[in-house]
């Protein structure tokens, strides 16, 4: 008797639990806009007249570059608090601002700075009801941090602060405290070719290598400590690996014929590259420890297979091939096998790389004769053109997949540009002397 009752009771409970919530309104689509935020100028105190850099300006610029945020101009701010207690949230709410950053910089000893900053979510409640009473709620204070920096790394530290803010607001790791490598060509110099690395916003550029002969295709090792690139210093294409902090250089590939388009596997143990040692340009995988190599593609003498890129899980290689008459993107398993075609839109697709979530690829697409950076969704195959610049080439993705740096032509000169992967924000990087090309975005540098 009891057993039957128990079973009947549990059935009743189960059916009650499975009863769906009665939904009154269903909304599937909304708007898509850059979120309005405000980075209030930080307070400064110290012996020097001003801090090494305007940290709040750097943070605001970073957030804007991601395309996901729209920082409020300083002259529109209703108040200028420098710590969260001073913030009157209603004033910002009235302006539609979703989040406010406030902070202060103090020079504790000459050249050493203590930084305090807070991030306030304007739309989170500051009070909640608990046990019938109104108690204060600290959900609205998303960040309350203290850090320190010296004059040398003050700017880079500002990018780290921007990363923390980005992650707190989106849940995605920020990629502002990263670097980009690129090649400049200044024919007016005796050694025209230079390999540079700079901050992700183009500042703090430093030269890594200068050469009389061409430098091409820089690529970062996954630990962010070395860069591999193609150098023609010996009269032909060879691939070198250079340690960034020690300057040590080693030659890692010098096969007969072409050695080009190097790219590291996600675990850093292998290199995929283009070699023509067996007759024509094909994709190979080179094991950096055993020095053993394996051929991945096998097409005839009139076909070029090049520009390999690993998938985020390291199992696939994306590459450009003109086996179908015009360059298109194909993918092949790292274990080899039959490659399958990935792009079908437009008359030309090249230089493809996966976004870190593996759901899209960023590439160069040519439609109606115009080369644009585009994003293709893997599942649906739909392609979205991201840029409105012309003759775009060599796209490189930020390690969190939110921004792309690429080379383009402006006023007859090749320059670098950036576009956010949602297509919202576009910028041209400050033009240096000569031509700038072959940008490569570093991996995450801060753990």
């Amino acid at each position: 008797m009891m057993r039957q009752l128990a079973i009947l009771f549990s059935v009743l409970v189960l059916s009650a639990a499975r009863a769906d919530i009665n939904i009154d309104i269903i909304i599937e689509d909304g708007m898509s806009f850059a979120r309005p935020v405000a980075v209030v100028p930080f307070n400064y105190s110290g012996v020097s007249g001003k801090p090494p850099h305007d940290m709040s300006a750097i943070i605001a610029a970073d957030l804007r570059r991601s395309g996901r945020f729209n920082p409020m101009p300083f002259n529109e701010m209703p108040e200028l608090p420098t710590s969260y207690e001073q913030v009157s949230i209603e004033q910002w709410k009235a302006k539609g601002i979703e989040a406010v950053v406030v902070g202060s910089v103090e020079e504790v000893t000459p050249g050493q700075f203590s930084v305090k900053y807070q991030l306030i979510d304007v739309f989170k409640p500051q009070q909640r009801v608990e046990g019938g009473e109104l108690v204060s709620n600290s959900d609205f204070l998303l960040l309350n941090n203290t850090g320190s920096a010296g004059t040398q790394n003050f700017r880079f530290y500002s990018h780290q602060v921007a990363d923390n803010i980005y992650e707190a607001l989106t849940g995605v790791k920020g990629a502002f405290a990263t670097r980009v490598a690129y090649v400049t060509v200044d024919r007016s110099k005796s050694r025209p070719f230079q390999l540079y690395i700079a901050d992700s916003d183009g500042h703090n550029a430093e030269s890594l290598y200068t050469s009389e002969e061409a430098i091409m295709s820089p690529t970062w090792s996954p630990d962010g400590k070395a860069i591999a690139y193609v150098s023609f210093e010996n009269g032909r294409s060879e691939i070198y690996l250079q340690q960034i902090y020690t300057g040590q250089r080693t030659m890692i590939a010098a096969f007969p014929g072409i050695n080009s388009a190097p790219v590291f596997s996600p675990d850093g143990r292998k290199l995929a590259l283009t070699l023509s040692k067996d007759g024509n340009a094909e994709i190979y995988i080179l094991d950096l420890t055993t020095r053993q190599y394996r051929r991945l593609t096998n097409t005839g003498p009139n076909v070029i297979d090049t520009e390999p890129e690993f998938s985020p899980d390291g199992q696939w290689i994306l590459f450009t091939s003109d086996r179908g008459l015009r360059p298109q993107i194909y993918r092949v398993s790292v274990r080899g096998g039959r490659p399958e075609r990935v792009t079908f839109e437009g008359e030309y697709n090249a230089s493809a790389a996966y976004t870190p979530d593996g759901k899209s690829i960023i590439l160069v697409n040519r439609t109606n004769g115009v080369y644009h950076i585009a994003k293709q969704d893997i599942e649906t195959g739909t392609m979205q053109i991201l840029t409105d610049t012309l003759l775009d080439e060599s796209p490189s993705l930020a390690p969190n997949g939110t921004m792309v740096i690429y080379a383009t032509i402006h006023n007859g000169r090749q320059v670098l540009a950036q576009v956010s992967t949602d297509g919202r924000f576009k910028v041209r990087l400050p033009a240096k002397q000569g031509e700038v090309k072959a940008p490569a975005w570093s991996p995450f540098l801060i753990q």
Partner: protein
Amino acid sequence: MLLLVAMIIMYSFDSVEVREKVAPNIRAKAVDGAAIKQLVEQQQKKSPPKTTPKKTNTQDQKKKQQELERKKREAEKLRQKKIADEKKRKEAEAKRKRDAEAKKKAEQLAEQKKKELEEQKKRDQALAEQRQREEELMAEQLAAEQQAMAAQREAVMSEADIFKSRIEGRIKQYWNKPENDGYCVFNLRLGPGGIFLGFRKLEEQGRYCDSAERAVVKAAPFPMSKDPAVIDELRSLNISLGNNPNLNL
């Protein structure tokens, strides 16, 4: 719901063994005290008293004595029998009387009961008739009320629907849909004038409730009717924002 009913039907409840407390079945036999006494006396008479026999010429005397005693015994027996018979007769008579009386009483009772039953029946009938009349009246009233209410409800519902879709539009205007996939099911409480009273997360995936909460706080005050019935209808709404696979449409 069907599932529940089916399960109940499927289950056979065991026959319930209920042990009631019953008085133990005693096979009683009525014992007649008088009969026992009689039997005892009979037994006593059967076993003669142990006396030593007298001399021979007293043997005639003895015979006479014995004859006398025998006669005495017989007379006694007869007398006892007479008593017994008389007793029996009296008892039977008494019993007959009693039975007759009981029968009479029973008949009277039955007659009375019958009367009472009839009267009760009459009363019940009257009551039933009255009740039925009252019910009919009430049913009429109820039907009229319900019709009025239904009409009003329709008016309220269609007005509520109108405002529901306005509220939906307003939220859409202010909701910044996140890049990733996900959904948020929440309860929104609104007051007169469409003021925002509360946001309560019910279900979430992909960190969607942050943007949902922001949207409704930004969108307030919402379009709202002035009709208190409609305000009441819309004061607590369950809303799903995003790609929700659990919705059964």
